[in-house]
């Protein structure tokens, strides 16, 4: 039985014009691409548009993609840029909503109803504090923690130097703590 193609192989085929290989690549990353766009544009329609246009641009720009470089941050950078453009143009923003059901980390005992209510309240406070941050602060924290991107990947996606991501994250945390009324 033949093994499935690796990402590098798919990228190489897509660089050569193989649209099916590109589609296979995209399927692996379309959810995080859309979520990245959503966290920046903060509007589902704009995020969908940004991701779709970003994917199209990525397809066209693929011959310029550097061989051996990681594909995901390159793709996310294109989508993030589209999302920023839409956000600037639109100016409207949806608040972040939390899922109704909260899944406990495995191994945790089921909390009491009061405990559950307190945890929900703490999460809502955290979201509210996040919403009060500047766009730059919120975006870097969103990439690093909500999307769980690494420092280097965040730097690539936001077109920042790695040191800038580090310092901006540090400062953003300070301001988030202030919003939460915590001392660092």
């Amino acid at each position: 039985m033949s093994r499935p193609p690796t990402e590098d192989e798919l990228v190489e085929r897509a660089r050569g014009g193989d649209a099916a290989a590109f589609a296979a690549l995209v399927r692996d990353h379309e959810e995080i691409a859309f979520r990245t766009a959503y966290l920046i544009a903060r509007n589902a329609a704009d995020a969908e548009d940004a991701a779709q246009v970003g994917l199209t641009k990525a397809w066209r720009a693929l011959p310029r993609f550097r061989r051996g470089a990681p594909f995901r941050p390159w793709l996310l950078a294109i989508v993030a840029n589209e999302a920023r453009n839409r956000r600037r143009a639109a100016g409207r923003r949806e608040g972040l909503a939390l899922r109704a059901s909260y899944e406990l980390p495995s191994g945790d005992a089921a909390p009491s109803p009061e405990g559950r209510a307190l945890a929900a309240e703490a999460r809502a406070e955290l979201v509210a504090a996040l919403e009060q941050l500047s766009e730059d602060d919120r975006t870097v924290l969103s990439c690093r923690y909500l999307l769980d991107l690494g420092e280097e990947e965040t730097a690539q996606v936001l077109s920042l130097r790695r040191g800038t991501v580090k310092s901006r994250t540090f400062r953003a945390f300070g301001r988030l703590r202030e919003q939460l009324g915590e001392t660092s």
Partner: protein
Amino acid sequence: MSDLERRLQSLGGEIAYPPTPRFDVSFDRRPVRTGRLRPLALGVAILLAVLAGVLALSPGARSAFLEIFDLRGATVERVEQLPPVEVQTVDFGERVSRDEAERRLGFELLDLGEPDAIFARGDRVATLVYGPVEKPRLVLSQLNGAVWDGFAKKAAGGGTRIEPVEVNGERGLFISGDEHYVMYLDENLDIADDVTYLAGTVLLWNRGPLLLRLEGELTRDDALELAESVE
């Protein structure tokens, strides 16, 4: 990891994102670039006088690629004959503050010290000008090459030298000798009709996702030294 970091990370799994749409990725097989340029709309003042005696142009002429050099954000091509486009004087775009340029482009500008003026062309290219705007000593342009193939450069004949170089371990090209065309590509990788101009000595290089372009009366060594000092 601090408690707040853990809480934030955990929050990532609790966000009610809208459902991810099924994106349309049923693209056609990408056409192979043949080196043919679509006819360019006319609409700006012709500066053919500048070209007379330098370039042999004929309307409708098409030229084959002789050499292609790719960087992230730019393609440099040596062609048999330059395409029949209208050449403009340089237009850097709108003069803006550094903050505004960074806001538009979405990244922090690199520089060689405080510039005399900063320009932004839409949200794609920022240009730092050193010296008088009318006759700059140095021009440093930058764009996100991961996002946009911004520049196409075309050089004809042996009068223009195109040398691959390294700047801080990343790829670059030093272009010197005869002037060459600089064109901007739009999002369809077509040449934007309204921006084509002649350039002299230029160093183009990648830095992470960025493409930087330094133009001035520079030797190769001076250009490389300056490029390595860009922060």
